[in-house]
């Protein structure tokens, strides 16, 4: 099996850049990746040892990548790394190596490790690599079988933990898959929405998912647990920013409590305003007790307080200056006219009031 590598990150000189890119990946597709991962606002918890992991199609390729925070910083902000392997669509053997790549991601997806110094790295096209490793042994787990029977309606959700990653590896190694399932392990609902524009994502782990379950693709509600209990959701916080999010919610008017059995608290928080619970109008402050906006309420004199004039004010001022200049020119003209000048001279000579 053949594959190419990619490395998207930034250094001190260059913003988000495709330092190493697959040969057929277009600029638009590089931008697409940037656009997708813009929706991850906090990468501090993602490390090379425990990164987010994704597999999805893009252009001519299927991308298997990891996303984490490097130790490097720019202007005080953590620099993220997006790197991995790209396999051309239709390349046989990818399904066989996928579990191994996830399991051994620290070495197999470590593209930045091939770069001597990212600060002097120039952009380059990836070489074509041939897979020389072995394939993972196949598995046959009942929960994967259960997932496959409900795959059209549900996604498999896994906890964003080491155990969850083991489950991901087990799932990917299942012998019943005929094509690689696409996944987003360690993500949020915004990124999932973006990825769904590329392809159907089967396996998902949100940052705060702490229990494996099946969730409805459309509502994101838990539709079943892996141990068979259909209503086995825990709202316990698992994300380190949960406290902050709750504080943020406290600033807003509380939405009416949901009473549906089986509603997924976790999903609701991931899609806070995307749900019907809180509208943008909830942010509204009381109307200031100023006069309503109308022509009469505007104090004409206030315009003169401005340091800066509007376009029309500048225009009017310039035109007024031009008009005044023209007027002066007209008034001055007799004095400059040679005939008038001569008449004035004669007049001044014969005038009885000429200066002594």
């Amino acid at each position: 099996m053949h594959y190419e590598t990619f490395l998207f990150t930034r250094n001190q000189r260059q913003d988000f850049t495709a330092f190493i890119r697959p040969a057929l990946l277009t600029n638009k597709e590089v931008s697409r990746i940037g656009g997708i991962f813009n929706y991850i606002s906090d990468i501090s918890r993602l490390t090379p040892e425990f990164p987010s992991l994704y597999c999805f199609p893009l252009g001519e390729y299927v991308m298997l990548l990891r996303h984490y925070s490097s130790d490097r910083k720019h202007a005080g902000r953590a620099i993220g790394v997006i790197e991995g392997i790209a396999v051309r669509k239709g390349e046989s053997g990818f399904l066989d190596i996928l579990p191994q790549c996830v399991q051994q991601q620290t070495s197999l997806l470590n593209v930045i490790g091939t770069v001597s110094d990212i600060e002097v790295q120039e952009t380059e096209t990836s070489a074509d690599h041939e897979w020389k490793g072995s394939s993972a042994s196949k598995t046959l787990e009942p929960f994967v079988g259960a997932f496959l029977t409900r795959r059209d309606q549900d996604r498999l959700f896994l906890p964003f933990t080491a155990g969850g990653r083991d489950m991901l590896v087990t799932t990917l190694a299942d012998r019943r898959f005929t094509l690689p399932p696409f996944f987003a392990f360690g993500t949020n609902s915004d990124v999932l929405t973006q990825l769904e524009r590329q392809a159907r994502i089967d396996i998902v782990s949100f940052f705060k998912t702490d229990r494996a379950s099946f969730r409805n693709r459309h509502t994101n509600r838990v539709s079943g647990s892996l141990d068979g209990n259909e209503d086995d959701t825990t709202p316990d916080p698992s994300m380190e920013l949960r406290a902050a999010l709750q504080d943020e919610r406290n600033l807003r008017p509380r939405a009416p409590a949901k009473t549906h059995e089986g509603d997924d608290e976790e999903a609701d928080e991931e899609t806070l305003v995307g749900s019907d619970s809180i509208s943008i109008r909830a942010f509204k402050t009381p109307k200031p007790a100023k006069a309503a906006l109308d022509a009469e309420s505007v104090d004409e004199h206030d315009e003169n307080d401005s340091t800066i004039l509007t376009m029309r004010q500048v225009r009017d001022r310039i035109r007024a200056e031009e008009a005044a200049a023209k007027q002066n020119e007209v008034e001055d003209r007799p004095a400059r006219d040679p005939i008038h000048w001569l008449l004035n001279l004669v007049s001044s000579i014969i005038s009885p009031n000429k200066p002594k």
Partner: protein
Amino acid sequence: MSLKVTLFGGTGQGKTTYTLGLLYLMVEGIDGFRIEDEDVDTTTKYMKPWSDFVMVKQWPAPTMGRREDRFKLYFQDQFITDFLWVDYQGGAINQPTDESDAAAQLHADIQESNAVIIIADAYTIATRPLIEARMLTSAPLIFHLLNSYKFKPAEEGEEGLNNGITIAIVLTKADALPDEFKANGYEKLYAKARQVFHGIHDFVRDEREKVSSLRPWLYPSAMLAVSIVGEGNAAVASEGQGYDLASFNLVGSPEPEDIQFPFLYAIGNELDRNALTLEEEIGDLEARLSKLDKNVLSRILRGRSIKQLEDERKETAARLKELEPKIRMVTRTANKKMRPLLV
């Protein structure tokens, strides 16, 4: 009427933090102004990193690529205008269009924009040698883009009356400035910013001196020193050197200062441009009518009666009248605070 406002600037200048802070302020409303997103999820997406910034004291992750969101601006609950907000990663300026899709999009966005908000790090401007400040703020490239897509086509007669652009320069991180740059209302900062952005400054100056054939009022330009974190809430963690910009630790809770004014300046001026166009339309029509003899007039009217023409003029005048108070509200608030690029 929908306006397009593009926000861009060099890398690490504070674009993302400015956008987050601005949205935070404007969503709840300030000075009677408030914005609403077209897609209700937009605010949530921006508010999450802002919340992390406030609660965890963590600077937002750098923008990758381009973001575009639609909003509506209200004053005291009355609709003012729609606008499209486009936000870029800093690197988009530094890359050729054939190497980067984001760069290609930025070029197109500037061409189509009514107003641009340029973000520049005041601390870099103040503390670095002039030539380094120019490089780090990407000032030459910013001028190059504006010149290529807005100034030059207008000078060459390819653009009409409406195709000027409002330029608002936001000088971020003003709270961290050395005292000498804060004195007398940031006088020294503004002076150096004019040097850093001398390309834009000189264009506006030449225009005013009537060297240019352009109408000098079509390119309103102003700047303002702002702080997203507020005075005393950030401390310098490391001074910058070379490409490495100075970094700051957030030591107190952010209290944005003055960040809404450049935005309102951009919107206000573009509303004023609309009014200007309407005024010119009315004036132009009246001037042409008064010069024409009856036969020519009837050919131009093509079956429309003088009354119909007069009705059109009245309709335009009514639109202008409706627009006036909105313009005044926005420009009155913003223009008092902004500082002219040209003195």
